């Protein structure tokens, strides 16, 4: 069978640095193909070459066997090749319908045919089991819904090849299932689908074939049946991945953080939390359950009612600087939007939260540089250049820098929201070990995670949230995937005695 889209020993260089080295790849009609690899392996670059966003430095791109040279992504789209990016490409102030038909608006004789477009949008959204009205503004809908709009936008085109860069990173399990249903439908219609994901179980479930990329080279490829999750991970990392999580530990000294009856807007209702010294406390729940909102309310990034006591003293509401002064900090889940200044250097990012310590009153550049040297060492941040922009670091290194930045405040209590979102397995393991080491040093840590193995593997104790409320607390052997999911979906825990 002629591949719908193929790469013939394609290389790509950015300036003097080659990031793809002679990659051969083929994508056949009617298949779902998974592209996996660690961050920085070259997945996104390869996808962008396939979809016409970048051009190859060397080698050829073939469509139906014919070598082509895309002048732009529009060129590729004209041939039915559509790519959905990791960062959304939506006009926030336009409605769902306007976004889906942007640039290809349906017209009547003179004017836009809103009725037709709305009907078509409603139909598309329904097929995606997404209940967002076509007339809603994109800025007002949730992140998973935006992903669905992106997918609807792609589906509304005449597509033969769909390329998706980590489509499920922001989706919950059930939302991913809906997406996969659509992917299977497209496959049956003969479309070729290529996607990346760090969730290996997903790949086992949906993909027909797998290509593993490491350091810009294809190191393994073949039918998914030839792989196991372990062998995929091993191929990505280039070594066997031993147990991802450090051994379980027993946390718990005196209570350092005590929140009672915390309510914040409609997102959090009457939540009470206790955290002990040296403990790793997990907060589980589905996306939108109010987990991030709860900790943001605790730390003062969001208004709240209810009392929060830190080391026995009441913490004022809505004062995040005061919380930091008293040793309570929050590491955001939104690395690029709320965590780091992508246009600034590592040094400027590292010290931003505690600049007063370096400014007396003029900023001591040498002390800053020393702090950066220490952070690079302690957190194993791999930056090709010290004075580079943070936006050019890989996701894993950004996360490590963010961790270093938050830890520079010398906290006693730190909340880490989605510690490893969009990060490769090698770095994940490093971050897990780091979290354990910090807890061992007496730091109290709250971890929010949507990844069940992560939550279960890391936390000594877990609160689970549903609809803005804490629906249960699990400890020790109770912390199981089944229990967390039951609580997260609003059911009660199946206890031994109830069975």
């Amino acid at each position: 069978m002629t591949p719908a889209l193929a790469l013939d020993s394609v290389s790509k260089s950015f300036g003097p640095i080659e990031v793809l080295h002679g990659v051969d790849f083929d994508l056949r009609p009617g298949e779902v193909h998974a592209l996996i690899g660690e961050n920085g392996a070259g997945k996104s670059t390869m996808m962008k070459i396939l979809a016409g966003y970048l051009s190859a430095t060397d080698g050829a791109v073939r469509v139906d066997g014919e070598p082509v040279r895309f002048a732009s992504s529009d060129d590729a789209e004209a041939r039915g090749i559509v790519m959905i990016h990791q960062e959304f490409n939506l006009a926030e102030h336009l409605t769902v319908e306007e976004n889906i038909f942007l640039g290809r608006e349906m017209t009547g004789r003179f004017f836009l045919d809103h009725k037709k477009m709305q009907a078509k949008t409603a139909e598309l959204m329904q097929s995606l089991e997404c209940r967002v009205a076509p007339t809603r503004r994109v800025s007002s809908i949730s992140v998973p819904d935006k992903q669905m709009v992106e997918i609807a936008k792609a589906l509304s085109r005449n597509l033969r090849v769909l390329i998706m860069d980590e489509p499920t990173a922001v989706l919950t399990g059930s939302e991913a299932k809906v997406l996969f249903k659509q992917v299977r439908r497209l496959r049956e219609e003969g479309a070729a689908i290529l996607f990346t994901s760090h969730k290996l179980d997903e790949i086992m479930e949906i993909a027909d074939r797998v290509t593993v990329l490491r350091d810009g080279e294809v190191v393994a490829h073949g039918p998914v049946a030839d792989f196991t999750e372990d062998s995929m991970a091993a191929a990505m990392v280039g070594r066997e991945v031993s147990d991802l999580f450090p051994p379980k530990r027993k946390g718990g000294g005196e209570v350092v953080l005590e929140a009672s009856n915390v309510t914040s807007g409609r997102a959090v209702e009457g939540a009470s939390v206790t955290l002990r010294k040296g403990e790793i406390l997990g907060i589980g729940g589905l996306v939108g359950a109010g987990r991030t909102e709860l900790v943001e309310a605790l730390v003062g990034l969001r208004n709240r009612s209810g009392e929060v006591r830190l080391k026995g003293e009441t913490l004022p509401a809505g004062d995040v600087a005061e919380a930091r002064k008293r040793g309570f900090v929050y590491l955001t889940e939104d690395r690029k939007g709320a965590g780091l200044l992508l246009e600034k250097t590592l040094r400027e990012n590292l010290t931003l939260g505690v600049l007063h310590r370096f400014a007396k009153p003029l900023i001591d550049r040498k002390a800053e540089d020393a702090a950066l040297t220490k952070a690079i060492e302690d957190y194993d941040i791999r930056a090709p250049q010290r004075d580079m922009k943070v936006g050019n670091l890989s996701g894993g290194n950004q996360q490590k820098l963010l961790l270093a930045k938050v830890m520079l405040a010398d906290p006693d209590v730190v909340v880490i929201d989605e510690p490893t979102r969009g990060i490769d397995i090698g770095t994940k393991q490093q971050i897990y070990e780091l979290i354990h080491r910090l807890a061992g040093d007496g730091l109290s840590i709250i971890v929010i995670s949507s990844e069940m193995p992560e939550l279960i593997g890391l936390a000594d104790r877990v609160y689970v949230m549903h609809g803005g409320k804490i629906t249960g607390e699990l400890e020790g052997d109770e912390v199981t995937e089944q229990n967390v999911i039951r609580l997260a979906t609003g059911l009660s825990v199946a206890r031994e005695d109830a069975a």
Partner: protein
Amino acid sequence: MSTATTNRTGGMKIDLTVLGPILALVALIVIGILLNPNFLSYGNITNVLARSAFIGIIAVGMTFVITAGGLDLSVGSMAAFIAGLAILVMNTVLPSMGGGYGVIAVGVLVALAAGLVAGAVNGLLVTKAGIEAFIVTLGTMGIYRSLVTWLADGGTLSLDFAMRELYRPVYYGGIFGISWPIIVFAIVAILGEIVMRHTAFGRHCAAIGSNETVARYSTVAVKRVKTMTYVLLGLLVGVAVVMYVPRLGSASASTGLLWELEAIAAVIIGGTMLKGGFGRVWGTVVGVLILSLIGNILNLTDMVSPYLNGAIQGIIIILAVVLQRKGGAE
């Protein structure tokens, strides 16, 4: 080997955006010398610098506002209003105080205090009320312009003649042959450069302009810093007025007209990004000098009508931004 190449090309790029405004300034000076031998004369240089001082002092403050992602359209009207107010107060207290430096001190204090308050009003409306800076300052621009017109009853507010003589040296005098406005401008510029580059406040401004959410999550006091940029700008408008009043000794509805646009233009020509996130005070100073030299050169030669001053300034502004974008994008 390959790393070395990257470094060198990287360095070249930065050099271009940094050197651009300076090269433009040097080119203007060379053109000026070639066209008119009087260009480099002591009198001409002093005149150009002293006239630049008002816009320059304000533009230094504007650099902070823009770097933090804000904008202030009201500074020209604010200057006119403060000048009118200061003159009115001085004239009013004159009979009871009987003249002398005390009256001038009162005028100076009124100007600085009024600038501080006016800046705080802009800043608080932007941060506490959450209204966009463009709209807030568009509003206050109209308010101040209208207030000064009303205070002057549509005409001109003039400082008492005796006081004017006493106050005159603040603009026309100086030490070591350098006039006071130039000295004050230099001090403001140097302090501004230090604050922008070497203090937490300057770094925080850039962080907020770069991404306000990141700044907030980094526990930067975003609202306070943003408000402070407007207060600082207001205070500097007050300083500019203190230097301006002795020049003409009067204020009217047309005082400070379009100063806001000249100040913003100088900031942009200097390499500060209009959307915020990066600012440099020395660039602003270069931008101010470029703008005033264009006018000066046109006045000194007959080749191009001075009426085209605005057109040439406009071309320079657009050119500056285009060049900077090229330097940054590649």
